[in-house]
């Protein structure tokens, strides 16, 4: 409706726009503001309990807490490992599928299967495979004979995180593949033909034509995957529940524990705010890349 240049009050616009907006505001923005308020209090949820104002004490507690540090570290490691590997494998699979003529739909279907399966289900499956007398240890000990004793995958910090990251990568490849495949199909074919005539080989064509053309998609995927990595809750809960001794907590599982087990509402609100700030900084960095690319194109 670009006919109307100046804003004129219109009751129809209000009726159409306000109810859905209020719905979203009420269930998300209002809690967001509430969370910031709560993070400055020793918040009590119970009847007739008073919340005392602490100002920054919750933040100091979080920042000094060694387990919060472990949880944030684990989350960052999880993101730093799973995001690039998912992208590389997903993009590779997309290139492979893009290069074949038959069965491409079937492969897409199969690769996407882990994406649609529920986190709870696949996490339980991985817990079984990674258990002390599970399939993986059987392969390592009895078939490959790499060690003589089974490895307690889920009972120490890094090996448990390894299992969680493997699960995340395995489940995420299909999503990356589908998105990248769509992006590959949108790359103009003339560019490839021109490059072939100029004598560019396969890898040159990939790095000089494909990659620059899918840059926008790449940034979208990175952003979504980083957010997804911070969103990791179910796999850790099911695989280890943060054990042993909270060594495998990620930010959300630790926040959940603080909220519902330790009942430190103020603490988890402060932790939320800190996570929000971390995510915001990361996305701002990613978006600055994007706008720089846009400028370069002009």
């Amino acid at each position: 409706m670009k006919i109307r240049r100046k804003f004129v009050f219109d009751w129809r616009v209000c009726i159409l726009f306000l109810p859905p907006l209020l719905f979203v505001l009420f269930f998300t923005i209002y809690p967001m503001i509430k969370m910031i308020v709560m993070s400055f209090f020793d918040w009590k949820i119970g009847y007739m309990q008073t919340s005392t104002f602490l100002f920054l004490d919750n933040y100091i507690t979080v920042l000094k807490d060694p387990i919060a540090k472990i949880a944030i570290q684990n989350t960052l490691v999880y993101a730093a490992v799973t995001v690039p590997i998912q992208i590389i494998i997903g993009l590779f699979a997309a290139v492979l599928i893009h290069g074949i003529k038959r069965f491409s739909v079937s492969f897409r279907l199969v690769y996407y299967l882990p994406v649609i399966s529920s986190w709870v289900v696949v996490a339980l499956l991985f817990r079984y495979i990674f258990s002390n007398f599970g399939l993986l240890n059987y392969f390592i000990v009895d078939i490959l004979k790499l060690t003589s004793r089974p490895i307690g995958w889920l009972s120490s910090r890094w090996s448990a995180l390894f299992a969680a990251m493997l699960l995340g990568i395995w489940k995420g490849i299909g999503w990356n593949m589908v998105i990248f495949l769509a992006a590959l199909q949108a790359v103009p074919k003339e560019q490839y033909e021109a490059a072939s005539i100029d004598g560019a080989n396969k890898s040159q064509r990939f790095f000089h034509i494909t990659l620059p053309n899918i840059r926008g998609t790449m940034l979208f995927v990175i952003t979504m995957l980083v957010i997804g990595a911070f969103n990791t809750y179910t796999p850790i809960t099911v695989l280890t529940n943060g054990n042993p001794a909270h060594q495998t907590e990620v930010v959300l599982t630790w926040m959940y524990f603080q909220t519902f087990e330790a009942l430190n509402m103020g603490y988890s609100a402060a932790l939320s705010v800190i996570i929000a700030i971390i995510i915001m900084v990361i996305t701002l960095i990613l978006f600055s890349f994007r706008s720089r690319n846009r400028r370069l194109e002009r």
Partner: protein
Amino acid sequence: MMSKIKHSPRRWWIWFGKHTIMNYLLLVLGALVMVLPMLYMIISSFKENAKTFLYPPVLFPQVHEITISNYRYILDNTAFFRYLGNTLFVSLMTVLISIIVASLLAYAFARLAIPGKKIIYGFIISIMLLPGLALIVPQFELAARLKLINNLWGVILFYSAWVTPFSTFLLRGYIEDNIPTELDESILIDGGSIFSVYRYIILPMASPAIAAISILNFLFPFEELGWSQAILKWDQIRTLPVAITMFFQAHNRTDWGYVFAMTTLAMLPVVCFYLLLQKYFISGLSSGAIKG
């Protein structure tokens, strides 16, 4: 030119020829990695529960060892269909609410003149950046105050609000890219209101994107654990992810035969749904992503 020579359709072996045989080999390898864990789960669900602890693990049980006792146990001892029904109800309601809310918002953001539109849109998009559970403390308090604890609506309303930003983002992009403004104007010039534009132009023309988003949102309740675990405490009203987790914990975290029978049963409707609607899954997912 070159490519035409390479892909001569006459020779049957050409699509299996030296250029693509590597592609196929690698893809089949990858497909095995994707599928084998799932197959292992299904096989384990047909082993007798006690045999799932055996070491070395039995990869392929003998024919006479295959049993459906685990499935019988699940159907007899848990309210599986009740959980499934709860999950389906939550899914359908979440889809309904989120599509109505997101399509109205997307239309408004794409086409209507609203003061401060960019700022409001930025706010809504910024919710997308936060993990859903990050707001769990204030949202739980809100749910408690609205008496929505132990109530399926406590899950439905919050899920709808969580998935709305991303749905709005995708739909807005779709409307801006694929629906010409001339269509809106033709209705407005004929004296129609913005409601008729929404009803007769936006909704039908955006239906491919709406279908894709519906599928995404439909699967969300089959997936989400943290919030539903906090809200749904009674056994009667649990959704599948909560029910499976609780069953697993109640069975010493080890009765894998039963657990995998339950997870396989829970996967069944999702996979059927996926196979039926596969083309929407993929087309819609990527439509919003390419422009980035």
